[in-house]
């Protein structure tokens, strides 16, 4: 409990505040992700004492989770990978004049998700950490297959199109150095492709640039509602959101405990889950508020929960957390069970700062929502050019490589085409993310078993997950077929 008092010291409060602001900025700027941003700021923290440094860096980390939402909603450009899903409904809401509401519910959902995860961290951290350990490569593979099964819910009207796009995503994910032999695949001798096509430029193109092209190409100028509607959700919207926030928090929290699950996966899962249990699934993709509330809660719950394996076992769940872990180590502290025992004051101070950080983020961001939403009311010529510039700078900032900008532009054109002929983009993104995870975990599992496939059905958790993924696929096939049959018989 001394830790809680320590976190309330003026200095640490300031560090948390600076961290939240910096994090939000990093999240807003497309391209520069929390991992790179945090790493760049590590030397700054050398001057600070370890507690202060860690508080600031943690604040940057989950600040970035929120910042990415702003651009997703306003201009359909995901500020960073985890914000992609928010584009689906968030930007639609913005086009309908409810951008402020979208940002508002995102802030609230993020707050709830973050606080709930932190409370859980405090109350049940060590036993939960065991969950992290029980997910080995075979379980991970099975979990990713479950994720792939979700694609059927993102397919929209045509299941075949959705599946085709998912496979296309998987194919694109194969570009690069193969994880088994180290041989380049589909790289055409271009060194920039050795590490794959680059997820962020692709999504910035498919969503952001495509949106610009569509709007330019629209025959009539779309007028965004001139009246700034209330920034808070209506009673009806609140009602729908609470459930979504709760479920998103649960999903994000659970997935945050599993090392190796990237930030974007909980957002997809939460979104699809919400869509499946909704009575009005056709609203999703057209501006359903649950479609914003669920992923946003999920990703902040994930961000806070992902600290649990780090603090209790010393296992980083994602590259960004690995950077945070590097920061711990550089400051002379090794995260793990022994850190809890040796320096409980420090660990509690960091945990207390999570609470503080989440509150700060809410306070910082809610009032600003009105300001951000006004951007939508600028003449579209300016928003359009500004967004394009923003995207180009963002794509370039990733690796100082013009190739990424090229990828983004090409994907922008592809995304435009896809929207024109009504091919769903979300399954492609899902395939693109899950592809490498599936391949690597399959390969590592087989290395562990010496080539024996029985490893997948002799491990109970893995077998269970495989059964779940099979059930999801079967259920989707059954669910969708009747609707398509009905449509066909109407014509």
């Amino acid at each position: 409990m001394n830790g809680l008092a320590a976190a309330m010291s003026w200095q640490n409060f300031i560090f948390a505040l600076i961290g939240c602001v910096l994090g939000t900025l990093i999240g807003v700027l497309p391209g520069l992700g929390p991992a790179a941003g945090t790493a760049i700021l590590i030397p700054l923290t050398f001057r600070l004492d370890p507690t202060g440094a860690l508080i600031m860096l943690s604040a940057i980390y989950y600040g970035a989770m929120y910042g990415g939402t702003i651009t997703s909603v306003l201009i359909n450009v995901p500020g960073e990978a985890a914000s992609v899903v928010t584009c689906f409904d968030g930007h639609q809401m913005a086009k309908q004049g409810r951008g402020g509401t979208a940002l508002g519910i995102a802030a609230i959902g993020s707050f709830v998700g973050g606080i709930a995860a932190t409370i859980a961290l405090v109350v049940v951290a060590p036993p939960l950490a065991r969950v992290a350990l029980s997910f080995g490569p075979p379980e991970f593979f099975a979990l990713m297959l479950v994720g792939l099964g979700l694609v059927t819910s993102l397919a929209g009207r045509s299941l075949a199109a959705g599946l085709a796009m998912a496979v296309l995503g998987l194919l694109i994910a194969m570009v690069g150095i193969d994880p088994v032999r180290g041989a380049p695949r589909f790289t055409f001798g271009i060194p920039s492709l050795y590490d794959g096509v680059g997820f962020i430029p692709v999504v910035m193109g498919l969503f952001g640039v495509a949106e610009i092209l569509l709007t330019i190409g629209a025959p009539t100028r779309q007028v965004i509602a001139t009246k700034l509607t209330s920034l808070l959700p209506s009673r009806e919207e609140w009602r729908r959101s609470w459930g979504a926030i709760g479920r998103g928090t649960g999903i994000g929290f659970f997935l945050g405990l599993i090392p190796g699950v990237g930030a974007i996966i909980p957002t997809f899962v939460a979104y699809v889950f919400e869509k499946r249990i909704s009575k009005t699934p056709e609203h999703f993709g057209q501006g359903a508020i649950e479609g914003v509330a669920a992923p946003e809660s999920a990703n902040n719950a994930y961000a806070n929960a992902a600290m649990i394996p780090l603090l209790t076992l010393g296992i980083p769940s994602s590259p960004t957390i690995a950077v945070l872990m590097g920061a711990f180590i550089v400051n002379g502290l090794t995260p793990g069970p022994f850190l809890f025992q040796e320096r409980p004051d420090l660990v509690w101070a960091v945990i207390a700062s999570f609470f503080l950080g989440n509150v700060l983020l809410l306070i910082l961001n809610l009032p600003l929502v009105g300001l951000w939403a006004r951007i939508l009311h600028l003449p579209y010529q300016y928003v359009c050019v500004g967004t394009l510039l923003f995207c180009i700078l963002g794509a370039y900032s990733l690796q100082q490589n013009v190739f990424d900008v090229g990828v983004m532009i090409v994907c922008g054109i592809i995304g435009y085409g896809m929207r024109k002929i009504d091919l769903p983009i979300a399954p492609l993104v899902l395939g693109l993310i899950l592809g490498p995870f599936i391949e690597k975990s399959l390969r590592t599992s087989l290395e562990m078993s010496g080539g024996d496939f029985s490893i997948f059905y002799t491990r109970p958790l893995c077998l269970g997950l495989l059964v779940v993924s099979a059930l999801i696929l079967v259920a989707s096939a059954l669910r969708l077929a009747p609707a398509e049959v009905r449509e066909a018989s109407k014509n």
Partner: protein
Amino acid sequence: MSRVITAIISAATALALNIAGAIGQDFPNRPIQLMVAYPAGGSTDIAARIVASIAEKELGQPIVVVNKGGAGGQVGWTDMVRQKPDGYYIGFINLPATNTVILDPERKAIFSEKDFTPIINQVLDPGVIWVKSDSPYKTVQDLIVAAKNSPNTIRAATTGILSDDHLAILMTEEAAPGAAFRLVHLEGGAAQFKEIMAGNVDVAFDNVGSIVPRVRSGEVRALAVLDDVRSKFLPEVPTTKELGYPTIISNSTRGIAGPKDMPAPIVAKLREVLKKAMEAPEHVKKLEEQGIAIRIMVGEEYAKYFADTHAKAKKYTEWAKNRPQK
């Protein structure tokens, strides 16, 4: 008349600047990029940022650390060899990782060992074999006996394909004929730690710098350091040489190099500045806190080390590519 004078003055200035540039006397006159071929946050990256923040004060120009991760470093090194050798773009090379990328025919690397100008080495991190603290293997001998009794069953984790850890496992199999491990290639030390703790792999081959704090805390047991002298960070851990396996010597070094054909005065200047930074107490302290051993090598010594490592890596890379189970 005044036009002629202006012309003469501008020509003279241009000439003077060019000469100065050619001699490198006003090098550097703008920021320098220091490339790290791995994503941010790894140990190469952290050590790079530390040395950059100290060296730039001496250099008088900012040294910007740029991450170009991917393909085990191949993306970054490919980028570096195509830059102008004017001293404004230098980067970290990691031996033997750089060597194995060159030597593996499937990687189709566009560079060879001749495409680099080695400047100065920073770190030499010896290899280490470690297990969970409650593992049945208490010594390297236990491990080798088990590997001989049940070949291809003991799961040995590396931090990457054709990493120094991978080669070290092959060296171990060579030194103990009949011993065979089942190789599991993970990505990075964090993944190794997790899989060992979860019991999904039995033994890990990694480097001292990655696990010193965990050995100290008792979470893991280090069986041997793959060097000919004991590590000052793990003084109680025997070396493979002491244990009767003097051929199992493996380490990972990180040093700074530039594209080939860098002018000698520029190399000398960079070397001098970087050496001073690496010897600074702040640098030494920060690296030692993490258990990373500094080993400064310059000039001939570094070039020779590069060549030696290359020759050694060649042998094991060929073996690795031809081995039935990689």
